[in-house]
């Protein structure tokens, strides 16, 4: 793995648009050389603005600084920042064929034609689109366009690769396959990459770290495992994967709920707490003798497992993922066993 690209640093980069809209609260952020950071969040959370700041398509509010390998590039326009960018709409040039699109950045840099040709061939092979070099852009499928856009963005060995929802325009099956290819490519290139998406499974699969964003600020930043298993807030817990959020009285290391009690690990505090439990970390056990139990409301088949809605255990129905090996039907009374370590207590504010 030949890691290239730069270490990226943002210092209190905020963005207020001319009409006074605050798109991004001041953010300070470090991205290591070769790391893939995913900016994840709902639309309007500021993730694209942050990407465009790094690209040089927007300038941060005064006193914000952007550094590539400790060199201040805040005032450097995009064309001299040496970034690679993949747009949601791909932005392939309709007046050029595939090879000309891929080679455009090299042509701008004055790379000799023979070298350019070799690099284009290398990238065609890397992205699996050999034989398409003389096609016009409108003769390509969505997946092929995506690959061309990617090849074009990395052709000139950019300092940082910026991807703005690159898979959103594709259908579900193709999206999944390209996600795998993209992952392999990012690891092969070892390039510093910033990846914007609103799809949490994409973020989990591709990110070395994920920054979950909300209302123009980073709600939490960490590895996919951190974000998933130890969300810092209710928003992060609910945005990343399915989550049961239960409000309960906590006393002596246990939660008291309508369906019984649940032991927790770090429940030193007393009073009303907010707890997060992932549906897959709940095990179904016999109702007799269970410390925590409820009534099955409904069972739905979701392919690799069944998903049950259990009422009476907490104030709101609890979602439980159950393997097919356990027969369940609506009206069954079941016990729910939950590893205390899998129960995450959340701060109560900022629902």
């Amino acid at each position, binding site marked *: 793995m030949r890691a290239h690209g730069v270490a990226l640093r943002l210092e209190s980069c905020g963005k207020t648009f001319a009409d006074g809209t605050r798109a991004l609260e001041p953010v300070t952020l470090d991205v290591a050389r070769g790391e893939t950071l995913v900016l994840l969040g709902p639309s309007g959370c500021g993730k694209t603005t942050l990407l465009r700041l790094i690209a040089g398509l927007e300038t941060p509010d005064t006193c914000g600084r952007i550094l590539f390998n400790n060199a201040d590039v805040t005032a450097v*326009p995009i*064309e001299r920042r040496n970034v690679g*960018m993949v747009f949601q709409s791909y932005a392939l040039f*309709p007046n050029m064929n595939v090879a000309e699109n891929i080679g*455009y950045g090299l042509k701008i*840099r004055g790379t000799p034609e023979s070298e350019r040709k070799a690099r284009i061939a290398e990238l065609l092979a890397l992205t699996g689109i050999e034989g398409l070099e003389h096609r016009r852009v409108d003769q390509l499928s969505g997946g092929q366009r995506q690959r061309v856009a990617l090849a074009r963005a990395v052709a000139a060995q950019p300092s940082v690769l910026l991807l703005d929802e690159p898979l959103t325009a594709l259908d579900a099956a193709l999206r999944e396959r390209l996600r795998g290819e993209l992952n392999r490519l990012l690891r092969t290139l070892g390039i510093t990459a910033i990846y914007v998406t609103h799809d949490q499974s994409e973020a989990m699969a591709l990110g070395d770290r994920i920054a979950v964003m909300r209302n123009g600020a980073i709600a939490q930043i960490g590895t996919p495992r951190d974000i998933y298993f130890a969300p810092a807030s209710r928003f992060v817990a609910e945005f990343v994967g399915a989550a049961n959020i239960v409000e309960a009285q906590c006393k002596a290391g246990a939660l008291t709920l309508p369906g019984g009690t649940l032991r927790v690990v770090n429940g030193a505090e007393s009073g009303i707490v907010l707890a997060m439990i992932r549906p897959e970390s709940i095990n179904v056990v016999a109702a007799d003798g269970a410390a925590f139990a409820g009534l099955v409301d409904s069972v739905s088949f979701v392919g690799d497992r069944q998903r049950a809605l259990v009422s009476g255990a907490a104030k709101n129905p609890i979602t439980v993922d159950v393997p097919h090996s356990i027969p369940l039907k609506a009206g069954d009374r079941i016990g729910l066993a939950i590893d205390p370590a899998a129960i995450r207590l959340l701060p109560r504010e900022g629902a």
Partner: protein
Amino acid sequence: MRDRAIFAGQLIFTLLVAAFLIVPALLSMLAGVTANYFRGIRSGLTLQWVLQVWELYSDTIFRSFLIAFAALAVTLVVGVPAAYALHIRNDRLSRAVEEIITLPLAIPGLAIALALILTYGGFAGFRGSWLFILAGHAVFTLPFMVRAVLAVFATIDIKTLDEGAASLGAAPWRRFRDVIVPNARPGILAGSLMVVTLSLGEFNLTWMLSTPLTKTLPVGLADSYASMRLEVASAYTLVFFVMIIPLLIAMQIFAGTRGSAVGAAR
């Protein structure tokens, strides 16, 4: 059966409308080669009027083409970058500029001409040259070029294409040359066609801006109607048609082939 009757009715109606518009043009051209219009076609056909027009007015024909292509050059050099800038900025200021550029369409040509004369009439060298007419034509035709190019920009995501080229290292001028202009080609060709035809036929402005030594084809035509035999003026119309129709057909063919090539690429 009923459909055929309706079709026949529509066809006849269309042909009648077309004839209503085309017959005067044909009669006018015919008058230009008639020896004596008042005695009608029985007086015989002649090219004498056409030759007379050529002797008297050939300079206006060349001048008209010179001005038309100069106006095209000006609107290309000014209008295409202007459209690019207006589209990329797309803020309140750029919308105001777009309105101002379009304003000459709503103002009578005479008023524009008067304003130009009031302002620049004192510069005798400029006032007396064909460049003075060019200035008026450029003002008048610029909105057509800008609008045509903006219309194409609205159908392709030119802003993202521009950002894409920028991310690959292309400076503004390079992006304009490599990406913007090639993809705006259908609009540029449509705008060019408008500019050339409008300039060639423009009378309002030109009549005010011209001097006896800088008459254009339409001004010469008015002159001949006013002061010559009807046959001479008609011969002038004939010359006008003979000059302009091949040009328009050529430009249409050019625009058609190139435009569709770019269209297919999209």
